[in-house]
């Protein structure tokens, strides 16, 4: 049978030449990638060109695979994904958690890394660690972004040119034949220390110098003098009923803030039935986060601190207070002494000073009040800071004398942080072999011949011993993104040890823990917890005390303006400066982002800037205009010009500047144009770096500089009334006397609308509906919150909150879903401070919901106020109508998610563009939509986590319980200030908090009948001052009322 022929065209039927040509050409229209048709040779078809379709597909494939390549291919499997769980459990789209440890220049926090499809995207505190108990800090939360930093060094180099590891090893083997000096920041890793020891043994005459940018040298030396041990004992704030801090920012930047914050909060948690709290008295030079949390705060000059210590020692021993003239300060010392002696055995004094004498006196006070063995434990040591400045100072001298052959830098960045940086530079020029292991081309690395970048901790193996006996392990969560090599690997190689560090570490711990199984198990938990030890004291050498007291009292203060340099919670010694999340984190004290500045007191502002904050017009002018006056500060011939911020709670004759700014441009886009380096203003006395100076002159320059503040007004009392519906605070004494005061205040506020009892039904003309099932609720304890900002950065990381850069923050365009409001009350020269984390209140009667014309924001049956980004057309009516102003609008294409091409350039700065780099975008959480331009966004109560928790419970056919879900802010909080859960569940923690704290609980702006689902527990302050004031108030009530009216009118 003849085959039937089917044809589609005459061309096919006749098999014409034109038809055949057509068939050859698969794409009848031109393909876009051939730029010019004329490049085609005659008769050549597209398939025969140099860039045919296959190439095109290759390009597409390459670009999509590029990110994946970095994460998976090429590398040996043992380094790629460190399976702590069985491989069959890994499902794409399901996050895996690996226990690891955040380590940065001596700081250690045990964390779990959340890994999605091979990418670590979020860090959560490791709740198994008894030290931090799941708490984190802003810097820990932000460190995951450092992994994807585009400014990281991507390959080893010799004199700035890329080189292979082999070539460098060869060159160094030839050069490194004499003694070498290893300069590192504090190393807490026992195995690294052993590797260093091995290296030092191999290279005779070599030494290891620990150099901390902001060191605790004086503490170490004072402990040497007092106790004969160059160690820092552990502190137990949770056991202290009386805490006195001499300008030690122990909640923010001092030693181990995450650990101390957790401990401190224990004493601040209030049991309503049995109210008792620790009392914290703080002596403050420049307003700090810790000082803001103090129950009582006294202002002093930095130079007065040693004398205060001496006076306090005398007072606790029952002696007279001498050498202090200021009456307020004297009263403060008396109050501190009274509190300390009243709580003997449960008292603690800490000092942030780098003055050995002062620290010796503090040791004596602690000894006198029975802190040793109770709140201070000598059985365990804190290893966070081990550097002694004088060692480094003499090393700098040696370099300059030409006595150093080779120097290895790891973590340390003295060219930036050492006050006499020029000497480090000139010294380095005389060293033949300079090697840096730092991850970025920082100031020191730039001057080193060899650069062998170390991997990020999320790419590394390692261990850390923050507190003696407590080990926290580091395991990689992603294979190294770049050609990096662990510092230890280099040292091992150069000491002639063929083992790689991974094996070395495994062997080291397998031997210690008793086998590989134990090692694997410990690694999975992330921490090794030793047996409990009893707190022990140490006998003090009192002869050193007398000398110290004599030394400090001999020093008479002058009346000049003093300078105190401090570290910011986010930026630290400068490590955070290149991290956009940390730069955009509002500083807890000033609420400023992206810059450093000079902090002055309101009284200095009057004389220096002609701004009187008590004058409404001047205060307004200062607040509403971002450009701030620039002042030139000169100290010992060195000067700096910075804008001035007026921060109440600063000593009238003291100014403060944060260190950590003015970094080299190579460390990241974030540092460009943000702040100036204040390290050169520090001085070196007896080899120790002093971050205070007492001979400062300030001159106005007449210029202004814009400072990006996220909050401009800090008082909730106005001439038209005190906005107590916003914030409620009370003293412990008042609370004990009258526990229901806040409850009654609420009752009075709601009286016109049916009172507390009937408010929900009678406050509205609409019917009230039952809310069965799940009802999500949050409670924030203002007593526990210390304002550290860990939650803010955690929220950024979890919810893909965009970084907008300084120019946009200046215009009030920051995107933070969660902010920490700060309010002052009382005396404006030394005010009380309270922090209030504020996120979407998820109102049950939400004013934002009914005004949206397209119903893009609506209420879920579980009490969530939801945002439907796809539906949002961006009228911003909801944001206007939100009484809490928590809604954020995408003013520009911050995330690169927009369909309009090329609309970021010239509108957004380099930081934002950098955040949109393919590498940086790897940090994005795939569970959360990246919002596009023109839509409103806001806190969702981490709805992705809630859904996951419900699903988990459903899969296991059980009701959801508290432990199923922790929202990002709650998880990150070192003090457990945030409680979250199902408020309809009688057994949930949130219900428990609400039931147990009826007297302190309040809703912000409750009288509006928006019915928020977030409750706050009022701030209770254990301050004695207030009681005195109260008594005085009663006796001359009539007189005071008048005066009060006057002050109110002034604001």
């Amino acid at each position: 049978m003849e085959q039937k022929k089917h044809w589609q065209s005459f061309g096919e039927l006749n098999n014409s030449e034109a038809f055949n040509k057509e068939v050859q050409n698969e794409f009848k229209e031109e393909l876009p990638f051939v730029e010019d048709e004329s490049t085609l040779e005659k008769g050549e078809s597209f398939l025969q060109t140099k860039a045919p379709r296959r190439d095109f597909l290759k390009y597409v494939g390459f670009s999509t695979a590029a990110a994946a390549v970095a994460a998976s291919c090429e590398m040996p499997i043992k380094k790629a994904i460190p399976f702590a769980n069985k491989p069959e459990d890994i499902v794409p789209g399901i996050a895996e958690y690996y226990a690891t440890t955040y380590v940065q220049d001596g700081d250690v926090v045990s964390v779990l890394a959340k890994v999605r499809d091979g990418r670590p995207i979020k860090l959560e505190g490791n709740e198994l660690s008894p030290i931090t108990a799941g708490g984190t800090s802003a810097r820990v939360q932000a460190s995951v972004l450092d992994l994807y930093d585009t400014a990281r060094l991507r390959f080893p180099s010799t004199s700035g040119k890329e080189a292979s590891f082999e070539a460098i090893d060869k060159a160094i083997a030839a050069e490194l034949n004499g003694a070498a000096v290893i300069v590192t920041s504090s190393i807490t890793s026992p195995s690294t220390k052993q590797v260093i020891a091995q290296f030092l043994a191999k290279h005779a005459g070599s030494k290891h110098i620990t150099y901390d940018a902001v060191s605790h040298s004086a503490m170490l030396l004072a402990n040497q003098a007092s106790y004969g041990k160059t160690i820092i004992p552990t502190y137990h704030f949770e056991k202290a009923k009386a805490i006195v801090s001499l300008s030690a920012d122990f909640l923010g930047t001092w030693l181990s803030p995450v650990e101390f914050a957790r401990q401190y909060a224990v004493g601040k948690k209030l049991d309503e039935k049995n109210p008792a709290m620790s009392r914290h008295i703080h002596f403050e030079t420049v307003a700090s986060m810790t000082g803001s949390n103090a129950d009582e705060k006294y202002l002093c000059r930095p130079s007065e601190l040693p004398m205060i210590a001496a006076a306090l020692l005398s007072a606790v021993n029952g002696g007279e207070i001498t050498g202090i003239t200021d009456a307020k300060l004297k009263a403060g010392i008396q109050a501190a002494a009274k509190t300390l002696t009243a709580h003997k055995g449960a008292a603690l004094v800490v000092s942030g000073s780098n003055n050995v004498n002062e620290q010796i006196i503090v040791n004596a006070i602690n000894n006198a009040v029975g802190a040793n063995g109770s709140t201070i434990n000598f059985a365990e040591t804190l290893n966070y800071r081990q550097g002694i400045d004088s060692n480094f100072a003499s090393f700098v001298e040696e370099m300059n004398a030409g006595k150093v052959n080779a120097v290895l830098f790891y973590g340390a960045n003295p060219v930036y942080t050492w006050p006499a940086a020029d000497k480090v530079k000139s010294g380095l020029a005389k060293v033949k072999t300079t090697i840096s292991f730092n991850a970025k081309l920082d100031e020191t690395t730039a001057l080193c011949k060899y650069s062998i970048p170390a991997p990020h901790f999320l790419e590394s193996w390692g261990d850390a011993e923050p507190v003696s006996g407590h080990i926290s392990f580091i395991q990689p969560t992603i294979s190294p993104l770049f050609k990096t090599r662990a510092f230890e690997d280099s040292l091992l190689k150069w000491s002639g040890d063929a083992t790689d560090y991974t094996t070395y570490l495994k062997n080291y711990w397998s031997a210690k823990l008793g086998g590989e199984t134990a090692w694997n198990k410990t690694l999975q938990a992330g921490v090794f917890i030793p047996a409990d030890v009893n707190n022990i004291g140490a006998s003090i050498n009192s002869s050193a005390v007398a000398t110290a007291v004599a030394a400090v009292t001999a020093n008479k203060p002058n009346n000049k303006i003093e300078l105190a340099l401090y570290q910011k919670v986010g930026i630290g010694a400068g490590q955070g400066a290149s991290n956009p999340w940390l730069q955009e984190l509002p500083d807890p004290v000033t609420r400023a982002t992206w810059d450093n500045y000079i902090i002055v007191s309101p009284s200095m502002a009057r004389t220096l800037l002609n701004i009187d904050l008590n004058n409404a017009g001047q205060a307004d002018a200062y607040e509403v205009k971002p450009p701030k006056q620039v002042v030139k500060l000169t100290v010992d011939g060195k000067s700096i010009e910075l804008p001035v911020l007026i921060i109440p709670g600063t000593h009238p004759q003291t100014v403060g500047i944060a260190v950590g700014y003015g970094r080299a441009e190579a460390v990241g886009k974030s540092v460009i144009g943000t702040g100036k380096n204040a390290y050169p203003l520090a001085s070196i006395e007896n080899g120790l770096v002093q971050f205070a100076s007492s001979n400062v002159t300030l001159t106005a320059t007449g210029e202004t500089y814009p400072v990006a503040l996220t909050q401009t007004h800090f008082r909730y009392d106005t001439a038209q009334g005190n906005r107590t519906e916003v914030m409620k605070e009370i003293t412990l004494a008042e609370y004990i006397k009258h526990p229901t005061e806040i409850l009654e205040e609420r009752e009075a506020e709601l009286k016109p609308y049916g009172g507390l009892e009937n408010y929900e039904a009678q406050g509205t003309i609409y019917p009230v509906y039952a809310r069965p099932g799940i009802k999500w609720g949050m409670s924030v304890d203002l007593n526990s919150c210390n304002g550290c900002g860990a939650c803010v950065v955690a929220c950024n990381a979890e919810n893909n909150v965009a970084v907008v850069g300084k120019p946009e923050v200046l215009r009030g365009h920051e995107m933070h879903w969660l902010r920490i409001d700060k309010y002052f009350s009382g005396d404006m020269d030394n005010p009380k401070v309270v922090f209030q984390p504020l996120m979407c209140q998820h109102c049950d009667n939400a004013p934002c919901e009914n005004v949206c014309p397209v119903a893009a924001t609506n209420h879920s049956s579980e009490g969530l106020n939801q945002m439907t980004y796809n539906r949002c057309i961006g009228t911003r009516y909801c944001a206007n109508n939100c009484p809490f102003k928590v809604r954020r609008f995408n003013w520009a294409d911050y995330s690169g998610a927009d369909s309009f091409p090329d609309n970021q350039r010239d509108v957004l700065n380099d930081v934002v563009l950098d955040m949109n780099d393919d590498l940086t975008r790897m940090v994005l959480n795939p569970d959360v939509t990246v919002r596009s331009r023109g839509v409103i966004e806001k806190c969702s109560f981490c709805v992705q986590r809630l859904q996951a928790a419900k699903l988990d419970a459903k899969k296991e056919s059980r009701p959801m319980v508290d432990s199923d879900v922790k929202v990002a802010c709650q998880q990150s909080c070192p003090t457990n200030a945030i409680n979250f859960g199902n408020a309809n569940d009688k057994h949930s923690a949130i219900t428990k908090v609400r039931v147990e704290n009826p007297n302190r609980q309040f809703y912000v702006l409750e009288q509006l009948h928006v019915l928020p689902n977030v409750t706050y527990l009022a701030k209770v302050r254990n301050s004695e001052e207030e009681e005195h004031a109260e008594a005085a108030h009663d006796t001359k009530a009539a007189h005071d009322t008048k005066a009060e009216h006057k002050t109110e009118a002034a604001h």
Partner: protein
Amino acid sequence: MHIKYESQLREPLVYGEKNFHQVTEDILRPIEVKPSRLWYIGFFIAVTLLLFGVFSLYREVTYGIGQWNLNKTIGWGWDITNFVWWVGIGHAGTLISAVLLLFRQGWRTGVNRAAEAMTIFAVMCAGQFPIFHMGRVWLAFFIMPYPNSRGPLWVNFNSPLLWDVFAISTYFTVSLLFWYSGLLPDLATVRDRAFTKLRQKLYGIAAFGWTGSTKHWQRHESLSLVLAGLSTPLVLSVHTIVSFDFATSVIPGWHTTIFPPYFVAGAIFSGFAMVQSLLIVVRKVFGLTDYITIGHIDLMNKVIVLTGSIVGIAYLTELFMGWYSQNKYEGYTFWYSRAYLFSPYGWSYWGMMTCNVLSPQIFWSRKMRRNVFVTFFMSIIVNIGMWFERFVIIVTSLYRDYLPSSWSVYYSPSIWEVGFYLGTFGLFFTCFFLFAKYFPVIAVAEIKYVLKRSGESFKPEFEKLEAEPLDKFVHDNAHAH
């Protein structure tokens, strides 16, 4: 006893010895001659402004609302200020055409055409702001309640913004119909006088085949009455609903029950001021001083002083309530953010008070009311004042609301924000120039209607009639039917 045909109290509505032909000639002349150099200059400026506005919008749509200086606290600024301002201006037209028609106010004939045109153009301008203030304007169709495949997903009928959509689109439609139906007889006149074929054809189409038959006139009159009846409630409803954008919110300074009447009074106030600004120029440039007379200006100034005082009372009531309510948040907004001259925006509140309440009081003087220069100056002042009013309501309420932590830095507009506003001026005047060139700016037919009662040339006939004794007139007309 004799009848007086000419009012002894009211001044004539049309000056000069005019007959019907003369009226047609006078009013249609600008349409039939080449425009003056002044017209070209004006038109060029208007189009330039319009193009600048288009470019400003291009910036906004491409780069985001961040091109404007709004922020997390101040979500609306110049955009909605300008929206309310333009809607307010759009009020006089309907009021003149509908309410005054129903009240049989003969003087409306001189000004209604231009006022209605102004209304339509002003509402067109106003409409740009709510549309382009959207972050994602390309999705603006989401606000239309239409059956869709998204669920179906409906709009939120609780939202005042949605009510705005309905209120303004209804108002625009009715105003447009009213204006156009009134134009029909005049367009037919233009068609009949056409000197080119094209002209005849285009105006012919536009005139819908008007022949001037009695039936046409009868239907025309009925339609006018029906539309007048329809638009009268709209005069009240549009600005009432616009005021709901604010009144139904929870923000101190917005959450006020006084807003609906206060907004309507303000709208009429600004609308009449805008009519004055425009007509004082038009009557001079087009030589129509005989039709838009000092008497018209005088009457409109009376409306201005009345509505200005109503607005003033509203301001004082608000201030009083700010104190009397003893609400600290409201108290702060009214007494500090607004009434305290030295607060950051105190200047705008006192600017508003001066322009809207104090300065119009000079119109209690007849001499001032009848002074063209004073009127022109005051009409500009009033419109500035009314712009301030909207700015005060929106910005001073938002920038410092409940939580002191969210208080905003000082807001001032960006170049593109100002550009958008200027662009709507461009749109308005481009439309108005085209209108003045291609349409009769005064309702010819309606002028002719009042001419017999008011025109000089008809007075001799009055005299003849008036000479007739009353008894004879009664007797002659007693058995007319």
